[in-house]
C-alpha cells in the first residue's frame, strides 16, 4: 500500500453508541484536509497483515481508547482491538520515527489506569463530546491552509449528520460502520470542507 502524508489511520470503536464521535472524527479530520483510513471492511485470515499494512501506509494514527467498558452481551468482554492496534502503531513508530501516533480519551487520568505502559504520554481528552473531538483534533494538528474554527467544523458536522440517511439509502447499508459508508462519508465531508472552507 503506497504511503501518503495525507492519510491518517483512525482507530476507533465501531458501535452505535459511538456514532456521533465517529462522524465528529471524520468531519474534523476532513476539515484539516486529512484522508481518514479505517479497518472497516478488512476481514479474513489475513486481517492482521492488512491492518499492519494500513498503519504503515499512514503518516499519522489516532487511537481512541475511550471505550474500555465491558459490552452488554454475554460473555461480557472489553474491546481489545483499539489498544492492540495502538501497540502495532507504536511498534511501527519505533522503527519509523516519522510515523506519529496520538491517543484520545474521554476521561482524564483514566489512561494511567487502563494502560500504564503509556505513562508519560499525554492523551487528548475529548470528554465524549463532538465539540471535544474537534477541539482536540485542532490541538493535535495545524493545517497548512486556513485552520478551520470549531463553529465551522460544527456546521460541517451537522450537515454530514443530516446527509447520513441519504448516504445510507444510496449504499443500501443498515449501519454506518461499513467500508462503503465510511468512504462515502469521507467524500461527503471533503465536499463540506470545500463548501464551507474553500479548497485553498
Amino acid at each position, binding site marked *: 500500500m503506497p504511503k501518503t502524508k495525507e492519510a491518517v489511520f483512525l482507530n476507533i470503536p465501531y458501535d452505535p453508541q459511538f456514532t456521533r464521535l465517529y462522524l465528529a472524527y471524520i468531519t474534523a479530520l476532513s476539515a484539516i484536509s486529512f484522508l481518514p483510513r479505517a479497518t472497516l471492511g478488512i476481514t479474513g485470515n489475513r486481517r492482521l497483515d492488512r491492518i499492519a499494512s494500513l498503519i504503515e501506509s499512514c503518516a499519522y494514527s489516532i487511537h481512541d481508547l475511550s471505550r474500555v467498558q465491558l459490552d452488554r452481551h454475554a460473555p461480557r468482554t472489553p474491546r481489545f482491538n483499539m489498544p492492540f492496534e495502538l501497540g502495532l502503531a507504536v511498534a511501527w513508530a519505533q522503527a519509523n520515527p516519522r510515523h506519529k501516533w496520538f491517543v484520545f480519551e474521554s476521561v482524564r487520568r483514566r489512561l494511567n489506569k487502563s494502560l500504564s505502559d503509556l505513562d508519560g504520554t499525554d492523551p487528548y481528552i475529548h470528554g465524549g463530546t463532538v465539540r471535544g473531538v474537534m477541539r482536540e483534533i485542532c490541538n493535535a494538528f495545524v493545517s497548512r*491552509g486556513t485552520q478551520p474554527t470549531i463553529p465551522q467544523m460544527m456546521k460541517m458536522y451537522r450537515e454530514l449528520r443530516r*446527509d447520513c440517511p441519504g448516504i445510507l439509502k*444510496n449504499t443500501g447499508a443498515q449501519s454506518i460502520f461499513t467500508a462503503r459508508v465510511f468512504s*462515502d462519508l469521507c*467524500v461527503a465531508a471533503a465536499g463540506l470542507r470545500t463548501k464551507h472552507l474553500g479548497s485553498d
Partner: protein
Amino acid sequence: MRRPVKLDFKPLSLRETAKRLGVPPARARKILALVGVDFDGRIVSTASPKRQARVVKTSSRRAKTSTR
C-alpha cells in the same frame, strides 16, 4: 506543553480524494450532490425553490406582502 503538528500538505481536490478513497467518480458525484457541491467545489443547490412572496398592491399608497 504539547505543540500541534504542522501539516505540510495541501488539501487534495475532491476528484483526487474520491479516487484515493476508492470511490468511483459517478458515485462520488452523487454523494457530493447530496452535500450541495460539484467536483470542482462549486456550490449546487439541493433545496427546493422557495415560494416567492408576491407584493400585492392593496391601495395606491401602501403595499402589503402576501404568499398567495
